[in-house]
């Protein structure tokens, strides 16, 4: 959690952190060399031998990976690397062929998705799942944990849950104000723009006070004007003590906010490390570009051979 550079920090920032635009990076997260599967000082999520196959395709085959607590970790990799599949497995939305993983010391293997969420590991989706036919406020209230009125019998007795409902409403309004959605609170979520839905989904996830927030491509389909605000919100999660794990394709964003980067390719973790160092790792460049080595992997992802991209698309469809 601390922002001081540890003795093993591979790349301390050269320039002093500028408060507004330059986020404060958390360093000293790992133990030993920054290599795939390296141990972390304080891991929140530990994954062991998780494997998921779709027919003959091995979508995910992760031997060992740890996600550091209190930091922002990016999960990157080319299309079809198995990032979203791994997300689904870790959150109970999909079942692995075998393997085990623990969250905060508790085993999650075989735990259904709703119970994973209740433990404090909340996820969002690549294709935003704002509930369009509920109002923005109802969307938010749905996110609150441990509601008395969600029991079918107690629901009939409003005096049992009215106070709790008011508290949740105040909390939701507070979050909506932070996400600049408070003026929309009585509108149907269907009337929001794509970016606003992403914001709503993130705000809704925060209603349950999660310890680990897993964001699946938070920037996909968001217009550039909203990007900065979304980035700030993600950074805020960290400053409030939450751990963030996110999947992203935008390398500039990854470099900007991530404290740690895990790179997947063809279902395996191929590299890990500080965002600036990891981009120089030959394994990462290979994973993205095959033989066509190119220095700036932030821009040119479209150079896969047809054969490779076809296979990867197939994998994408499978998930």
């Amino acid at each position, binding site marked *: 959690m601390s922002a001081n550079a540890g003795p093993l920090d591979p790349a301390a920032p050269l320039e002093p952190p500028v408060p507004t635009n330059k986020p404060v990076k958390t360093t000293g997260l790992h133990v030993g060399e920054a290599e795939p599967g390296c141990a972390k000082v304080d891991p929140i999520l530990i994954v062991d031998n998780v494997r998921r196959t779709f027919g003959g395709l091995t979508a995910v085959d992760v031997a060992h990976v740890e996600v550091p607590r209190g930091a922002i970790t990016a999960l990157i990799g080319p299309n079809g690397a198995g990032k979203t599949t791994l997300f689904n497995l870790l*959150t109970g*939305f999909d079942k692995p062929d075998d393997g085990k993983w623990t969250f905060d010391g508790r085993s999650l293997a075989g735990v*259904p*998705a*709703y*119970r994973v*969420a*209740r433990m404090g590991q*909340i*996820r*969002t*989706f690549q294709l935003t*799942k*704002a*509930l*369009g*036919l*509920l109002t923005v406020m*109802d969307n938010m*209230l*749905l*996110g609150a*944990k441990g*509601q*008395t*009125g*969600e*029991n*079918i019998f107690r*629901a*009939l007795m*409003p005096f049992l*849950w009215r106070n709790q*409902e008011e508290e949740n409403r105040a909390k939701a309004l507070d979050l909506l104000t932070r996400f600049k959605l408070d003026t929309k609170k009585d509108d*149907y979520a*269907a009337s929001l723009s794509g970016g606003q839905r992403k914001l709503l989904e993130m705000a*809704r*996830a925060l209603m*349950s006070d999660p310890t680990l927030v897993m964001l699946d491509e938070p920037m996909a389909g968001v217009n550039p004007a909203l990007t900065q605000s979304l980035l700030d919100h993600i950074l805020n999660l960290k400053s409030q003590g939450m751990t963030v794990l996110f999947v992203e394709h935008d390398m500039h964003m990854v470099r900007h906010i991530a404290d740690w980067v895990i790179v997947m390719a063809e279902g395996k973790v191929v590299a890990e490390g500080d965002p600036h160092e990891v981009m120089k790792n030959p394994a990462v460049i290979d994973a993205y570009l095959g033989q066509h080595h190119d220095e700036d992997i932030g821009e040119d992802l479209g150079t896969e051979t047809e054969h490779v991209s076809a296979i990867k698309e197939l994998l994408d469809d499978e998930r």
Partner: protein
Amino acid sequence: MDWGAIFNNAAVELISPTTAAYALAALGLAVHFGYTGLLNFGQAGFMALGAYGYAISILTFGFPVWGAFLVGVGASVLFALILGIPTLRLRADYLAIVTIAAAEIVRLLFTTNTFASVTGSANGLSGYKNEFAALNPLADGTYGFGPFTNNAYDTWLRIVAWSIVIVAALLIWQIMRSPWGRVIKGIREDEDAVRALGKNVYAYKMQSLILGGVLGTIAGMIFALPRAVVPSNYQTTLTFFIYAILLLGGAATVLGPIIGSMLFWVLLSFFSGFVARAVEAGWLPFMSAIQGGQLRFILVGVAIMLIVIFRPQGIFGNKKELAFVR
């Protein structure tokens, strides 16, 4: 042409126990389909369980009215569990297939000769009304006015039937504006989103299936009290009539099923009275009296199509919230 009789007969349907029974069954379906998004095509099965559960408990086992009521409700809870356990984890359409088949299985079990001593087979059951009539606090005589004039038993039945409908409507209204209802409406739209927020979607869907099914079962009992229990009453068409009522009134509303049922029965009675007399008077020379009797059901089909096309949210529905299912 006797217009007075046509209107009179139509008005009688406004508060008839049958109208109340259909309203209650449609309210159950509103919980399933309108609020939760469960495609239950077996509401007739739930109603049959109510009617037979009540009649068999009284005739075969000599239960009191409340005991017979509980047997019917218990049977429908069991039925909902049997339907729900294997199918609620699957996609919505599977529930539709399973419920339509299960309702038919229930009906055929009541029809088969094997259990004739208990179920009365195709002839059904009758003679179970005395226990309910014995509870009647009203003195003999006629009550009401105009087309709503009834004897003591029928008045008593109407009071009980509509009281149940009103209580059920208030119950559903309250529960749907509670946090429970919020989760249910979330499930209607996207199960995974609700699951990701830590709600046990499977349990909620099961609760909804049971709640709506129990309403259907009580409706079956009310439906049985003014007539005999005959298995052919509980065919799939019964479910479709209830769907017609639900869509007419508005799927995700509380008032919709009730007003929808009143409108449905008044109009149906009006049309059948009108067509029958029009055939008699020779206005429709291409039609026999029997064909005239069937015409009203064709009109029901046309009405359903028109509603779905031109007013998918029904009379009371909110178009923004619910255009048909999504």
